[in-house]
């Protein structure tokens, strides 16, 4: 495969977004290659969620361009764009009056397509097809987020945006769900962008990590580069915490 034939799945070109004069995103440029699993890490307010929302036009930049598959999103039809991009977020936002099946089938329904293979869609995210007729309120938090992911993928999009998807879940659920996402990423050939404030999660799941602070990208490295101290002081500070925890746990076990 020639490298210059396919444009990057997602690219930001000197993108800024300001709210009431304060920069949430400040002249960010970055390129995400097709098929990569990228984590955007930063403390709350660092601008990582805003950056994500610029990709499917839930928000619009004040300056710069956002390109999806080499196309400027500003000239795309926002409705079509959103249906073609999977979006998962912390509050999940399942439609409470629709069954699991209806929730998952919403994008094909909006597109006027036929019904989805609900059994396959549920199996993909590790759920039993018995749940198809349940309402969201009858599911556990982890099950709800699995349905959220299945809904995001049902449109057939190959770009998956995840904004703190595991933020409200317990550690065991976080771990298994993280692995499910990683498997889906590989099996479906997705390009996945995971926004998280948890560096350990980023290190374990992503191929490449961007660290954001004050609206800017302050580090861009692979997990290996991060852990070996090649990614700069901000990255080191974030990596220090899980590393210290791991050491402490190892000591306690001896």
């Amino acid at each position, binding site marked *: 495969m020639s490298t210059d034939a396919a444009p990057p799945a997602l690219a930001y070109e000197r993108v800024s977004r300001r709210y009431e004069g304060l920069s949430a995103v400040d002249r960010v440029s970055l390129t995400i290659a097709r098929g990569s699993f990228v984590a955007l890490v930063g403390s709350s307010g660092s601008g990582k969620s805003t950056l994500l929302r610029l990709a*499917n036009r839930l928000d619009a930049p004040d300056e710069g361009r956002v390109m999806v598959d080499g196309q400027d999103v500003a000239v795309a039809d926002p*409705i079509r764009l959103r249906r073609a991009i999977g979006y998962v*977020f912390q*509050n999940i*936002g399942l*439609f409470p*009056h629709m069954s699991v099946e209806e929730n998952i089938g919403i994008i094909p329904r*909006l597109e006027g397509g036929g019904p989805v293979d609900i059994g396959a869609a549920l199996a993909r995210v590790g759920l039993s097809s018995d749940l198809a007729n349940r309402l969201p309120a009858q599911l556990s938090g982890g099950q709800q987020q699995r349905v959220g992911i299945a809904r995001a993928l049902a*449109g057939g999009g190959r770009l998956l945006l995840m904004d703190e998807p595991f933020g409200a879940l317990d550690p065991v659920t976080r771990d298994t769900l993280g692995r499910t996402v990683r498997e889906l990423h590989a099996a479906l050939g997705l390009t996945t962008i995971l926004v998280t404030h948890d560096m350990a999660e980023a290190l374990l799941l992503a191929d490449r990590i961007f660290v954001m602070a004050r609206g800017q990208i302050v580090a861009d490295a692979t997990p290996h580069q991060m852990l070996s101290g090649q990614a700069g002081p901000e990255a080191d500070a974030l990596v220090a915490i899980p590393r210290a925890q791991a050491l402490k746990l190892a000591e306690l076990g001896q």
Partner: protein
Amino acid sequence: MSEALGQLPPLIANHVLLAAAAMALALLIGLPLGLASARRPRLAAAALGFAGLVQTIPGLALLALFYPLLLALSALLGGGVPALGFLPALLALTLYALLPILRNVVAGLRGIDPSVLQAADAVGMTPAQRLRLVEAPLAAPVAMAGVRTAAVWTIGAATLATTVGYPSLGNPIFAGLQIERWDLVLAGCLAAACLAVITDALLGLIERGIGRRDSRRTLTGLGLLLLGLVLACLPLLQGAQRSVTVGAKNFSEQYILSRLIGLRLERAGYRVTYREGLGSAVAFRALASGDIDVYVDYSGTLWTGAMGRKDTPSRDAMLDGIARWMAAGPRTALIGPLGFENAYALAVRPSSGLTSIADLATQAPRLTFGADLEFLDRAEWRAIRDAYDLRFKATRAYSPTFMYRALQSEQADVISAFSSDGRIAADHLLVLSDPKNAMPHYDAILLAAPGRAHDARFLAALRPLTNRITVEDMRAANYSVDRDTAKATPEQAAAWLDTRARH
């Protein structure tokens, strides 16, 4: 009671039609306005503020306010806008129903979890899809609760439509209150309450259907509601022919005379409907604008009221003057006097020792004056008050029936009685003489609307009534309706009067 129930079906039909139309209009305005308000806080504040303000106006007053408003509008548009009947009732009830609908639509939409709306955008719903698939179904249960409240209010308040001349279940209530026929009052109240309860139950079924996403329940509720609407309105289909409308003010004599006029017109082959309970000032304007075709007024009322005259000429001069004024100005017609007078008079208990208004003037500062609801605002009251310099210790306003009670029970010492009232003789009251002739004459006169002023067949049916009713007969007829026991209906009294008038 069975007679009271017998006259309900056409009233229920009109009542249901009015309430349903008002609800439909309120929904038509309230749903989009609520939707727009939920997204624009300043619009919400303005819309809810206005609807809340409307709600503070008493229903009766709101209906009454539409009368001059529509008259002005009609004048502006060169006529054609009916100021009485369906239109003012519809507008007032619609405004009344707006608040609960608006408030609950806004609350329902604002109550939706923001993350659900974010998800709707993120999956690529257009604004219209988001409204149809997410916002409408999620806001519906709360919005429906508002619709239920509005429906119950509207059905209840529709009884007030009677006061602007639209037939409703208020007819038996207001008429019954006036002539103390509690079976009529009860029949009207019960029917309105039943309508409200049934409607509320069906809307509740729809509300639960929407809330539980049970479309069978929703459709059943909707179907039954529509069926009820159609069934209730069936009696209206029979009454589609053109008919004559006889007006009546809000006291027993007027109810009886309107039925007497109706009797004569029906005998002449007309279909007759009634607009009862009209206020004194409203009645003549309703005639002039053709909203009613015929009614009985009193010469002095027109002379001092609509004509604005201050002098008190002789009986014949006054009738002459009225006939000429009517033909020239409002183009209505004076068919003729009925033969008796229903003058305003001041009446006292015989034990008071008073005989004339001049005597009364010296005693007045120690006495309480009981007047009917409109007397204190009338030119006649100002005329005698100024002529005799009357100053009472206190004045109180009563509905006519309660005014006589107040005099008997000594809560009032002087009342504004009517000279044709049967209770004057029955209660042995003394009518004070008017030595200064300050009160004008009040001959009962039969008036026809502009459209009937030259209708020979119509006039021929009613002319035989002129000068045929004596004050004694009128008093007897009034008393038969007003007395506490063995009450006659206005129809029965009218039938009796009809035979007396032919001798």
